[in-house]
């Protein structure tokens, strides 16, 4: 039987090697700015990797992942501030809350065709933001802090977040690598390719879709919690900002949906670009992103990795 070079074991091996190299970098003396930049790249690779887990493999476009980012941020913040919980436990709990939320939102919406899921998730994210903004005012009880947001206790060093985000990046990429050649992965891809045919072949489509959504969303929630602690100050407009969704989508789309390296390429590229463009004229950046999306759909729908893989060719 032909051995595929990119079999799971060798991929995981390469991944671990790269992670170890990255882990060693701070120990070799990395300036603060580069440390932060790398941490940011790790975060975005992780976030788009999560988005890819769901949308890239099933083909059901999630337009509301930022909902979970925000929920995770708030959960972690509240647990740490009001509950005095330690950081990692808060992250874990936040992820669980997001999982439950994803179950609630995913189950009714994933039963229907993709358009419904796409817009329902779009609406969910906006709705979540509004709820957090208005809750205190509506209920008359200081909890979420409304538009003022929440302030967290002082965090440890930048190195702490470097390693935490490196961990999450590794986790997401590792899960993706495992998924790619697993039964679960084949099921998701079958759903993407031809859902009715997949059903007839015995694939429990709804169950798998919901599972992927829960996985993706809970991890996004965890990362949201990490960022909250990193920034020490969260406001709804920031943690529920649709720009995060846009970036996750475009990064994965550019790199190639449904591939392991797609999010890595897309996220690294766009994070570096946005850093250099600066936050000054955000709308230029967004116009740029919009044009990228339109161009990719028309010219290169499978993204960079897709274009690369297409040329693998057959017959050998």
């Amino acid at each position, binding site marked *: 039987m032909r051995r595929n070079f990119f079999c799971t074991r060798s991929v995981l091996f390469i991944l671990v090697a790269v992670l170890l190299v990255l882990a060693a970098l701070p120990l070799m003396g990395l300036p603060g700015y580069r440390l932060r930049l790398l941490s940011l790249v790790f975060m975005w690779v992780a976030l788009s990797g999560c988005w890819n887990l769901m949308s890239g493999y099933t083909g059901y476009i999630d337009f509301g992942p930022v909902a979970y980012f925000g929920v995770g941020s708030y959960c972690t913040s509240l647990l740490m501030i009001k509950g005095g919980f330690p950081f990692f436990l808060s992250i874990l709990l936040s992820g669980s809350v997001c999982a439950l939320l994803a179950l609630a939102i995913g189950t009714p919406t994933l039963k229907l065709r993709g358009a419904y899921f796409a817009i329902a998730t779009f609406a969910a994210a906006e709705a979540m933001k509004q709820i957090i903004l208005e809750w205190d005012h509506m209920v008359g009880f200081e909890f979420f802090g409304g538009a003022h947001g929440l302030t967290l206790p002082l965090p440890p060093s930048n190195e702490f977040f470097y390693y935490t985000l490196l961990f999450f990046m590794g986790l997401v990429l590792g899960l993706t690598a495992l998924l790619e050649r697993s039964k679960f992965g*084949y099921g998701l891809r079958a759903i993407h*390719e*031809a859902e009715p045919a997949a059903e007839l*072949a*015995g694939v429990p489509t709804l169950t798998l879709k919901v599972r992927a959504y829960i996985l993706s969303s809970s991890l996004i929630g965890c990362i949201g919690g990490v960022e909250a602690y990193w920034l020490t100050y969260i406001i709804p407009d920031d943690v529920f900002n649709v720009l995060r969704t846009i970036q996750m989508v475009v990064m994965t789309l550019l790199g190639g949906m449904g591939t392991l390296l797609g999010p890595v390429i897309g996220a690294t590229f766009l994070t570096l670009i946005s850093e250099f463009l600066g936050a000054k004229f955000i709308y230029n950046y967004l116009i740029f992103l919009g044009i990228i999306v339109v161009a990719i759909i028309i010219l290169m729908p499978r993204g960079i990795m897709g274009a690369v893989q297409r040329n693998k060719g057959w017959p050998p």
Partner: protein
Amino acid sequence: MAPLSILQCRRLTKRFGALVAVRELSLSLGEGEILGLIGPNGSGKTTFFNVVMGVYPPEEGEIFLRNESLIGKQPHEICHLGIAKTSQIVQPFLGMSVFENVLVAALYGADLSLAQARDEVEEVLDLMGLFSWRDAPAGKLTVSGRRRLELAKALATGAEILLLDETMAGLNPRELEEGLELLRKIRDRGATLILVEHIMRAVMGISDRVIVLNYGVKIAEGTPQEVTENPEVVEAYLGKRHAGNRPN
């Protein structure tokens, strides 16, 4: 001795708005038999298959697989219970290789582990003559190749009842013979088949029994010989004028 009846439909009715696609269809499928299902276009054959597979819920009637009711079950559940269907308009998983296409069916339909599934897929591909194409992207197959892939997937689910919707369409005589041989082999492996075909020679040559539908209603049932001599059948296909002749 009559074969054990494994699939039973009683007064099955499926409506799409005002259109009655299948009207009070009752049939019984015996274990190990090849049942031909024929009828003019639009007579409800494909709809019948879709109802059995749970794609559409019927308005009235019952379907039993051995003693288990299929009404209200999802297609993937019905697949697990042992029925698989090929579609008239084949839908391969285009972005995946031929091997991976069949692998999905073996993993999920037959509920095998990855290792077991891989073995099963190789066996099925061999049987279907697709082994040399195993790494090809499914999109590169010819029409007849895609049909064989569709059949391979249905086989790989491990289903005991196969509903085959026009798998022989568009084949030349040699391919047709090979196809029929294949079906016989599949039956000998232990499957029970319901065949929907327009190519009379194919259906009549291989079926143990034939059921004829017209406008969703069963108008004849019997051996191929009995059915071709039935004037109502001839009329359905060729119109009243030809009711005295036999179709070939």
